[in-house]
């Protein structure tokens, strides 16, 4: 018999965070989120001006057997005239009864708030872990994404969910042959478009502070039409900067600016933290911090975080600047490969860029949808 209850107590919060750590204890592909970030979210209740949350635990025979986080992203629903409840942080033992009890709880919670569809896995924003892995179960996860066992899609589909959107992921390595033309055209692209790469000859904090508004403005403009995205609020921006400040390396954060120093494009990559965090349970012990700092200084893997060029500069080869930067990363120094993270299946323009690398499409993720109204 499965019992589902909402997370209310400190003990529930601990159980919610630690259940997947136990479930994936021996799985080498699972990379935990930071324990502190998860605890902060759950302690706050996950409710803001723009979103409402509920966290559920499923118990079978008295033991935790699953968990799920439901979100009503009010901002997204208003912008897109939808009535959707999202699910994320779904984890379960291989048991249909457990999984379905969790989905039903999220559905009922959403229906009580007049929602007509349930979609997921999707977080508060596009910058959260999203998408269920449906291909590539024996590939390393990046820190920015959630691993799941191969039985998860079957649990979801057995409940009546259908595909809503797919994302593809690529592993990029240095091209087999040097592309001298790309380096040459990067310079001309900047000249012809009257753009420049912003100088990072200042402290990391100052560099981020100087271009932060331009970065988020550019991000919102470029991503607003993409599946599942919402503008990032000022509070969320502050949180993101706090979260990622430790691991951001100025070398992998490029701003392309116009003559007025307005950000018209950017590339944000992170040193790949998978190896540093793999068996850490998300806790930043001194040893884990040391591993992270080592990786930040000399990464073997770079995770592509965000890349964007404003629409008015798209189709003008401004992306050559970012691609050339990525190829340099892969051919000079310690970086062996780049993980693109999630590219929407329909975003063929982004995927077309990977032809300048030695590339392998190694993962696929899916967002599911179901009518509930």
């Amino acid at each position, binding site marked *: 018999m499965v019992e589902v209850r909402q997370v209310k107590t400190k003990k529930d919060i601990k159980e919610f965070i630690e259940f997947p750590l136990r479930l994936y204890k021996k799985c080498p592909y699972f990379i935990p989120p930071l324990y502190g970030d998860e605890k902060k979210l759950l302690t706050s209740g996950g409710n803001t001006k723009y979103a409402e949350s509920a966290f559920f635990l499923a118990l079978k025979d008295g033991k935790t057997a699953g968990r799920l986080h439901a979100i009503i992203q009010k901002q997204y629903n208003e912008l897109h005239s939808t009535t959707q409840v999202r699910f994320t942080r779904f984890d379960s033992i291989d048991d249909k009864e457990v999984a379905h009890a969790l989905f039903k709880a999220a559905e009922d919670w959403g229906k009580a708030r007049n929602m007509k569809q349930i979609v997921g896995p999707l977080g508060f924003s596009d910058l959260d872990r999203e998408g269920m892995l449906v291909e590539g179960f024996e590939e390393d996860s990046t820190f920015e994404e959630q691993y799941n066992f191969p039985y998860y899609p079957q649990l979801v589909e057995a409940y009546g969910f259908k595909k809503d959107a797919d994302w593809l992921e690529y592993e990029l390595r240095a091209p087999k042959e040097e592309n001298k033309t*790309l380096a040459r*055209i990067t310079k*001309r*692209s900047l000249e*012809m478009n009257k753009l420049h790469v912003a100088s990072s000859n200042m402290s990391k904090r100052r560099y981020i502070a100087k271009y932060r508004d331009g970065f988020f403005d550019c991000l919102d403009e470029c991503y607003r039409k993409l599946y599942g995205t919402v503008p990032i609020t000022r509070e969320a921006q502050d949180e993101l900067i706090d979260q990622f400040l430790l691991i951001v390396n100025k070398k992998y954060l490029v701003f392309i600016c116009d003559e007025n120093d307005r950000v018209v494009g950017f590339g944000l990559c992170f040193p790949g933290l998978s190896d540093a965090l793999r068996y850490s349970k998300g806790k930043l012990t001194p040893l884990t911090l040391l591993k992270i700092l080592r990786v930040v200084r000399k990464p073997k893997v770079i995770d592509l975080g965000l890349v964007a060029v404003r629409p008015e500069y*798209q*189709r*003008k*080869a401004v992306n050559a600047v970012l*691609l050339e930067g990525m190829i340099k990363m892969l051919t000079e120094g310690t970086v062996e490969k780049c993980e693109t993270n999630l590219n929407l299946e329909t975003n063929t323009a982004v995927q077309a860029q990977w032809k300048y690398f030695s590339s392998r499409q190694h993962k696929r993720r899916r967002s599911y949808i179901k009518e509930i109204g």
Partner: protein
Amino acid sequence: MLDKIKEIIAVILPGTDKDTLTENTRLFEDLQFDSISMMMLLTELEEGFGFRFNQFVGFETIGDITGYLECRI
């Protein structure tokens, strides 16, 4: 001039059969150009014909290129 343009395109897109290219060939639709190939084309045209573009130009067809160069050179 058309022959020289065809040669440049064949360098940018290895494997392209120059004999199939005409003034009506559409760079994006027929040859799968992207903006980077277009920029490669512009830089090769600059070197091949000895001038500089003042701004990015996105040609639609090979005919557009010959028309532009005839005015420019």
